[in-house]
């Protein structure tokens, strides 16, 4: 839950400006980007995602490092990705 997982913004939602589609390890889901409304992320930028919300922008190097760390912690990460996969955000 408290794990921040990095995702790459793929596209912004055409109608709802606070939603964006992200790619996290191949899982593509909508997340809320309302907390970054001061400086919204653009497609191709990376964000740190907590429980369905982008909490901060990060650079690609940070994203790669965070991702490897997360993959290394095993079950907790797999649970998080499984939870994201089941997410209902719309």
């Amino acid at each position, binding site marked *: 839950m*408290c794990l921040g997982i990095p995702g790459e913004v793929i596209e912004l939602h055409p109608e709802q400006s606070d939603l964006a589609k992200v790619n996290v390890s191949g899982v593509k889901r909508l997340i809320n980007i309302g907390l*970054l409304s001061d400086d919204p992320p653009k497609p191709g930028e990376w964000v740190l995602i*907590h429980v369905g919300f982008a909490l901060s922008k990060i650079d690609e190097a940070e994203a790669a490092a965070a991702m490897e760390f997360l993959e290394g912690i095993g079950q907790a990460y797999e*649970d998080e990705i499984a939870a994201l996969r089941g997410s209902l955000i719309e």
Partner: protein
Amino acid sequence: MRFVDEFRDADKAHALAAKIAALCEPGRSYKFMEVCGGHTHTIYKHGLEDYLPEAITLVHGPGCPVCVIPMGRVDDAMHLAARPDVIMTSFGDMMRVPGSNGSFFDAKASGTDIRMVYSPLDSLKIARQNPDRQVVFMAIGFETTAPSTAMTMLRAAAEGISNFSVFCNHVTIVPAIKAILDSPDLRLDGFLGPGHVSTVIGCRPYEFIARDYHKPVVVAGFEPLDILQSIYMLLRQLAEGRSAVENQYSRVVPWNGNVVALKAIGETMELRPYFEWRGLGFISHSALRVREKYAAMDAERLFSVPGVRVADPKACQCGEVLKGVLKPWECKVFGTACTPETPIGTCMVSPEGACAAYYNYGRMNRNRVPEAAPAGQS
């Protein structure tokens, strides 16, 4: 993995170990608390204590949101979930936390409608799909998750959803740190500040620690080199006779935090006069409740909640572990009666809990790298 190597480079780790050892004053010992459970995890996964001189002890702090929820609040949530009109939603981490009569998983197995969600926004969708039921979201976590709950409440209000409410258990990290500083049990020399909480609250809320308690604080990232570098920064402050708040994780943490997130929390929630933390007891102004303006989304106002205080199981020493007074393996039930599969205490439940981190990585003995020996020794 070119990028990752920058944060994991073994040569850099050994070089930092030597710099850390060189900064330790002979005859002096240092106790640093890593506040965040994510840091505890990195420290044990990578065996970072092996890179530190004997004079440095890392003490695990209370920054594991699941670990600090007292049993009484789990029982209250269970009471709400048992109502036939209620669908309780919860993060996965919370599902195994034991209450007096079992966990959410146990209750779910015996027919209570408790659903695991990834995001509070998922709860909102469940509320839209079930207009004849009350959907109660079990909100837990520090300032990393509180903005998500707040934004979800704002969205529910904007959409006019009337069957969504929050059982608010959000806690704030700074009063817990203050309680630890005021506790006579523990003498600390400095803090590794939490990385992701600080993306929301920024670095300023820690300034009192440097100013009033004269202890250095370094907000730290989660990679092994981040943590070693942060320990080096703490030691450098001590060696120079300074105490300040420094941001090692500036590539992610803005000094002023996330203003939008803070505004959303402030709009929907306010500080409780006091809140009970597992192991730490009652701490004033340490948790959030739903503001009067959003009373229609406050499960505590909508439904009656027993609010009974429940003592922790006698065998469990999570309190001492959360305060950093005991190492996890010093607890009487660690690894025997209490394991991640059948946890007695919360520290064994969450992957961020100190006991789970110790248990999973089995690091009870330190095997130091040569660079960690103080100068002149080997």
